[in-house]
């Protein structure tokens, strides 16, 4: 992707998305690598105690199954402390926030956006009025 997911979410907040929703969207995107890392740590711990995670595809799937529970449970047990830590930092306070990030929006991008919107409108109008040839 050319746009960083975080930039996208924070720009949406600047344009009026609620901070709560922006957080959920951003945290979800950031949670994936954290989850992968956690799974890696748990897999290493299980391997150290003799879990076999190598070999044929079916053997590997059987090896991964015992990891699913611990990964999910350990993520859930931290939820309360995580939410407390966010509340300590005034998360959920009503009102607008002044974000530090300003996503650059050049004149060129604006022109392209307007042209695309005009193109879309033109396509819809021509399709409805039958002036645009439909594909066979």
């Amino acid at each position: 992707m050319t746009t960083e997911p975080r930039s996208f979410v924070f720009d949406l907040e600047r344009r009026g998305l609620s901070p709560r929703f922006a957080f959920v969207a951003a945290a979800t995107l950031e949670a994936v690598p954290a989850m992968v890392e956690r799974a890696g740590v748990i897999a290493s711990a299980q391997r150290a105690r003799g879990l076999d995670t190598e070999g044929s595809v079916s053997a590997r799937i059987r090896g991964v199954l015992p990891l699913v529970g611990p990964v999910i449970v350990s993520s859930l047990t931290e939820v309360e402390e995580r939410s407390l830590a966010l509340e300590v930092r005034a998360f959920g306070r009503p009102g607008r926030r002044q974000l530090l990030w300003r996503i650059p929006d050049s004149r060129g991008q604006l022109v392209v956006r307007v042209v695309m919107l005009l193109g879309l409108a033109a396509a819809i109008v021509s399709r409805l009025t039958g002036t645009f040839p439909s594909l066979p």
Partner: protein
Amino acid sequence: MLELRQATYRYAGYARPVVHEVDLRVDDGEIVGLVGANDSGKSTLCLVASGLAPASIGGELKGTLTLDRTPAAGLRTYQLAERVVIGFQNPNTQRSGIAATVFEEIALGPINLGLSVTETVARTREAIARLRLEPIVQQDPQRLSGGQSQLVAIASLLAMRPRHVILDEPTAQLDPAGTQLVGEALHALAAAGTSLLVAEHKTDLLEGLCDRVVALDAGRIVLDGPAGRVLGDPGLVALGVEPPSHVRLGRSAAAAGVDRARIDVALQ
């Protein structure tokens, strides 16, 4: 000033309270240490003093918490956050998970307070300087050592410029240099009038840091007094708290038959 009066707290779903009839007052500019064995109710008392128990986690509080003469009962969590902050032991659960750099992580609190960009940046820079985090401000907060994460978590709280700070084992993952850094930052906060409550196992740190120390046993305050007196109390070991190293050394030497006066001279 932060004051608990006759505070008895029971977690939701628990039959019995975990802290009992606690009277605790932390004056402006005062640092109070909190010691006690594991399971003595230290962390719960910290949560109660922060107002998050019961404001966020529920349960039942009898007695009162007052923050600068404002009763905490009825305040929403974000209103509490403007008055009191609490830091936990595990820095990994205190990361927001949405910041790409340490700077953004520390700035999150001020941003949430709705401050102007100038003010947010000023507070963030101040917190960074207090814990000397300048070399890592551009790093990814997920890729720090345990000690660095802990310092970032504390800096994130300081950037809120709170009037009251509660820390539950803030130096658990820190090396001696990091521990000293936190100690200096807390001293500076107290000098500026902040009231601090610090739960710690490291009694050597508390002795140098605190004006007063409170010892907890089974959810009740059993010792309360000047740091030197409480940490030198003969009953401390029975409470499951390791006294500061010089106290232990003095006792071992005395038990070995060394003259008390010579021990004191040697320790000086």
